[in-house]
C-alpha cells in the first residue's frame, strides 16, 4: 500500500473544507476559561445565518416548548453552548463529519454519531468524574477528536482486513500503529495537521493529536485529553465506533490520576450517553437540511 508523504498530507488538508469565521471564533472563545455566555450571544448575533439556525432549533419539535422563543439571548441560554458549537460546526464542516469512511468500512454518518457520543460521554466524564474543567469544552473536544479519520479514510481504501490482520498477528499494537504501517500516518497525526490549518486553539489540537496517548499531552491540557480519551472508549463500548477500528485501541488506565470513576459511575455515564444522544441527534439533525 502506498504511503502518504508529509507534503501530500498538507495538500489533502488544503483541499478540505475550512471553518467559517464565526465557527472559528466560537471555538476560540469557548476554549477560553474566562468567557461567559454573553460573549457567545454577542458572537452569534454577528452571524445572521447562525442566529436563524439557533432560533429554529430551540423552537423545533425536539424541545417541545409551548411558547416560541424569539430572542437569541434566551435561545442560547436555554440550549447551552454545546448546541451552538454543534450547529456552527455542522454548518461549515458538516461534510467532514458526514463522510463515508470507506477505509474503516463505516457508513456515511457513522463518524458524526461516534463524535456526538464521544462528546456527550466526555462531558459526562467531567461532570460525574468530579473534574475541575469545563464540561462544555470537553464536549467540543469530543466532537472534534476524530477529524483525522475523514482525511485518511480514502487513502486507507480497502485495507481494513489488513489492519486487523496486523493487530491479530501482534505486528501492530493497536489500530493507530496499523494505520501508520499502512499509509505512513495515523488519524491523530492527520487530524493535528487539519487542526493547525483550522487554527484551532492549542488545547483542542492536543486532544486531536493525543486522544489515544493522553500521557503525551502537555501537562496543562492532560485532564481534558484524558476526559476525551475515556469518552472515545465509552462511545466505542456503547456500539458506536467508526467501523473496523472500533475497540482496537488501548485504554490508558492512568486516567485515575485525574478522574474518579467507579463501575457504577461508568454505568451511569453510559446510560446518560444513550438518552442524551437520542435528544441531541434528533435536534441537531432537524436543523441540518443543508448539512453535506
Amino acid at each position, binding site marked *: 500500500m502506498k504511503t502518504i508523504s508529509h507534503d501530500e498530507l498538507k495538500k489533502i488538508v488544503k483541499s478540505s473544507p475550512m471553518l467559517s469565521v464565526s465557527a472559528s471564533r466560537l471555538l476560540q472563545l469557548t476554549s477560553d476559561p474566562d468567557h461567559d455566555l454573553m460573549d457567545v450571544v454577542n458572537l452569534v448575533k454577528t452571524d445572521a445565518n447562525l442566529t436563524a439556525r439557533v432560533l429554529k432549533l430551540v423552537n423545533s419539535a425536539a424541545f417541545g416548548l409551548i411558547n416560541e422563543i424569539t430572542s437569541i439571548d434566551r435561545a442560547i441560554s436555554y440550549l447551552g453552548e454545546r448546541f451552538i458549537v454543534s450547529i456552527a460546526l455542522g454548518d461549515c464542516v458538516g461534510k467532514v463529519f458526514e463522510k463515508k469512511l470507506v477505509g474503516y468500512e*463505516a457508513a456515511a454518518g457513522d463518524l458524526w454519531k461516534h463524535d456526538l457520543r464521544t462528546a456527550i460521554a466526555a462531558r459526562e466524564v467531567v461532570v460525574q468524574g468530579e473534574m475541575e474543567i469545563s464540561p462544555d469544552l470537553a464536549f467540543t473536544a469530543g466532537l472534534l477528536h476524530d477529524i483525522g479519520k475523514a482525511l485518511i479514510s480514502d487513502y486507507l481504501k480497502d485495507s481494513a482486513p489488513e489492519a*486487523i490482520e496486523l493487530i491479530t498477528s501482534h505486528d501492530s499494537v493497536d489500530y493507530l500503529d496499523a494505520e501508520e504501517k499502512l499509509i505512513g500516518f495515523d488519524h491523530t497525526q492527520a487530524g493535528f495537521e487539519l487542526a493547525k490549518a483550522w487554527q484551532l486553539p492549542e488545547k483542542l489540537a492536543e486532544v486531536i493529536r493525543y486522544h489515544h496517548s493522553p500521557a503525551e499531552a502537555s501537562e496543562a491540557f492532560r485532564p481534558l485529553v484524558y476526559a476525551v480519551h475515556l469518552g472515545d472508549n465509552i462511545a466505542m463500548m456503547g456500539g458506536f465506533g467508526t467501523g*473496523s477500528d472500533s*475497540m482496537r*485501541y488501548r485504554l490508558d*488506565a492512568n486516567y485515575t490520576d485525574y478522574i474518579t470513576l467507579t463501575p457504577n459511575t461508568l*454505568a451511569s455515564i453510559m446510560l446518560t450517553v*444513550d438518552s442524551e444522544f437520542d435528544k441531541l441527534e434528533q435536534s441537531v439533525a432537524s436543523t441540518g437540511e443543508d448539512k453535506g
Partner: protein
Amino acid sequence: MGQVILGVGDYGASNNPTDDVKTFALGSCVSVILLDPKTKTVGMAHVALPDSSINKAKAAEKPGYFADTAIPALLAEMTKYGCHKKGKGMVVKLCGGANVMDTNDTFQIGKRNALAIKKILWAHGMGAIAEDLGENFSRTVTISVGAGQVTLSSPGRPNWQL
C-alpha cells in the same frame, strides 16, 4: 423477508421462518439468544449493563437494558409464541461483551455483562451451548428464524457462524 431489528436495551422474538432477528454493533453489550426448537421461535435481548439497581426507572421503561431484567422479560415475551415460561428445552447462545485493549477492572463492562447474564441463566437452570464473548472488536448479529442460524459479522472480517 422481514427483519426484526433490536436496538440497545431492546428484546424481541419471532416465529416467522422468513424473518431475520438482528442487532448491530454490540461493543461491550451482550446479545442473549434463545432458540426454541419446539415452537421454532427465536428470541434475543441486547443487554447493555449488568445490574438494574443503578436505575430502576430505566429498567421499568426498558427491561432489556439490564441483564437481571432482560432475561425474565425475554422469557415472558416468548411465552406469547407458545414457548415454555421457564425456557425449558431452549438452546442458549451468547455473543458480544467486548472490551477495549489494556482495559482496567472498571472498564470491563463487557466481562461484567457476560458474567451477570450467565448467573441469571443458571438461576433459571439454563446454560449457553455456544458463545463468542470478549476480545476487542464489535459484533453484529443476524439470526435467520427459519434455519435457526446465528451469523456474526464485524467490519474488516469475514462473517462467521455461532
